[in-house]
């Protein structure tokens, strides 16, 4: 395949992955978006408003932080891209700011979104409050129970949270419910997808909104080191939006290794995993052709990861293509690896990372690093939302935590 790794074809293909496998009921909406998204996004008044909000509301640029003690431990040079410092606590808002402005320009007066852990739901509810637009967030019934603080945040921000009661009652089903809701009310509603998944043009649109991450990385690294290019960029991948953003402006730089870290859950072959590139086959999920975790009969499997944000049985088509072509290197970290990385990051750098982001940090242990390497890890979110899990992990582990302090 000769198609770009960065930008899809007109029909939304990255190599053999992508497309728009949607029922006719959604065609007018998706087609309207496909025809207009690039024009809208690159229109000067849009860019002006978008950049202004990223700066004054989100708090961009986020710092590129030289992680001195982590670097020392791994005997290399490590920078953390601090997406955890974005308003609402993760990179998700880069995309929701962009999409709410697109929705306004398309004349939509209602927003729907899906959410797993609630980060994208909170980021969507936030921009809807900012713009005074009605917001309905679909969330798996199980996730609503597990993520009470984020449910409360969305409600405080004025959103209606609708429990997805179908299937396994988690992110996959919340996405199904959001798509069904869109089918039932297509005309005035815009669906803000939270990752680089879904029918074309969503993967490309979301990747472009998130690409601000790598745009800043390049400029910041140049300022710090004189060179724009790191040797490695590491990011965690569920659907893959922070990875898409962190990789975007490095994809065409062959010297930069792109390391995507999937959630292995209890282990790749444990039956409790979310490592889609390792376990998935070519299939169709949520409107795009990509790698999908499924049974031999083509029923989609419910994955497992300790991190709700990576707990997804698919992966964005851009990433499937990076995997398939070998341009990206795909690693995985187990629940335990990630938890260890959480405490490592806390104790060495004074930063409590989100469980998702900790998967990226956990990859360091598996890599053959050189002293001369320059590594950027995308620290996609902060750990506040995971505090209950962390508190649970500390019970009985106090001793271990103390021991690891002098690292």
């Amino acid at each position, binding site marked *: 395949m000769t198609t770009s790794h960065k930008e899809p074809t007109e029909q939304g293909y990255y190599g053999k992955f992508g497309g728009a496998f949607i029922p*006719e009921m959604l065609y007018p909406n998706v087609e309207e978006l496909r025809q207009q998204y690039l024009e809208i996004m690159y229109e000067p008044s849009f860019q002006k408003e978008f950049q202004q909000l990223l700066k004054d509301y989100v708090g961009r640029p986020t710092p590129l932080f030289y992680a001195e003690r982590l670097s020392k431990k791994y005997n290399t040079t490590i920078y953390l891209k601090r997406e955890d410092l974005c308003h609402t606590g993760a990179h998700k808002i880069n995309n929701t700011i962009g999409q709410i402005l697109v929705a306004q320009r398309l004349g939509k007066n209602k927003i729907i979104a899906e959410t797993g852990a609630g980060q994208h739901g909170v980021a969507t509810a936030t921009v809807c409050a900012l713009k005074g637009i009605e917001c309905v967030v679909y969330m798996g019934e199980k996730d609503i129970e597990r993520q009470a603080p984020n449910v409360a945040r969305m409600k405080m921000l004025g959103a209606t949270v609708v429990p997805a009661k179908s299937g396994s009652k988690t992110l996959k089903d919340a996405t199904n419910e959001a798509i069904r809701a869109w089918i039932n009310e297509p005309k005035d509603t815009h669906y803000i997808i939270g990752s680089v998944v879904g029918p074309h043009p969503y993967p490309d649109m979301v990747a472009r909104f998130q690409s601000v991450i790598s745009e800043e990385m390049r400029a910041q690294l140049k300022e710090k080191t004189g060179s724009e290019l790191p040797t490695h960029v590491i990011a965690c991948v569920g659907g893959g939006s922070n990875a898409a953003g962190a990789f975007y402006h490095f994809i065409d730089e062959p010297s930069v290794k792109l390391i995507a870290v999937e959630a292995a859950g209890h282990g790749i072959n444990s039956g409790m995993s979310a490592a889609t590139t390792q376990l998935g086959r070519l299939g169709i999920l949520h409107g795009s052709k990509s790698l999908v975790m499924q049974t031999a009969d*083509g029923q989609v499997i419910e994955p497992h990861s300790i991190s709700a944000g990576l707990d997804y049985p698919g992966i964005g088509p851009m990433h499937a293509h990076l995997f398939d072509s070998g341009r990206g290197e795909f690693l995985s970290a187990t629940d335990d690896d990630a938890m260890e990385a959480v405490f490592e990051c806390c104790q060495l750098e004074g930063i409590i990372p989100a469980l998702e982001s900790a998967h990226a940090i956990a990859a360091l242990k598996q890599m053959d690093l050189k002293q001369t390497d320059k590594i950027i890890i995308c620290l996609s979110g902060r750990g506040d939302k995971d505090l209950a899990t962390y508190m649970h992990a500390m019970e009985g582990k106090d001793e271990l935590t103390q021991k690891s302090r002098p690292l």
Partner: protein
Amino acid sequence: MSRIKDLFNKKNSNVLNVYCTAGFPHLCSTLEVMNALQESGADIIELGMPYSDPLADGEVIQASSGVAIANGMTIEVLFEQLKAMRNEIQIPVILMGYLNPILQYGFERFCKRAKEVGIDGLILPDIPMFEFETEYNEILSHYEVDFIFLVTPETSEERIRKADKLGSGFIYAVSSSSTTGKNKSITEQQPYFERLKSLQLRNPVLVGFGIKDKATFEAACTNTNGAIIGTAYIKALENGQDISSITKAFINGVKG
């Protein structure tokens, strides 16, 4: 001549297509349901191939799919059940489902098996026209399986004409932009059906989504060739034991 074409040659109004999920209510009830539908006077049987993530379906059909999957229904099992169906079933039978399970089975292998057991047509709402033209049209034509496209009140005339040209069997006119089983008024949609009628399409038009009883069936048939019932029939099956008598009562209720 295909069974579907043959049917519409003989009968071009009030055609009743009834949907049931294969393997629902029991794994082995598929043929029993089909026989009951044929005996009760349904004109077309539409069998749903259950899928874990059926985007175009409402709660009732989703739930029946969940039951069927739990019962052990797969494409392979279904073809095995349908192997000898043409000894009993004379009316057209179409399969409805989603692309992913078929891709795993192998699209060509699927079409070949479908033809072998006597399937007449296929409804896969998540194959868009672009993909149909580039990937699937040739295979379907080769095995002479009709492919039925969906149109909605929002579909442009240009696109309806394209669906009419590319598709065969009939056009599935979704009564309103919705998932299956939503109660939007059929009578309000008459201008849309009249518009479809005025286009003088090559294929007959059947209306689906929101048809549940005699009144909605008659309203749907006023300007079209017939209608499709799914959710209401699944609900009826959920509420009783004897498939044959439930089906008879249900179809009688619809056709009056």
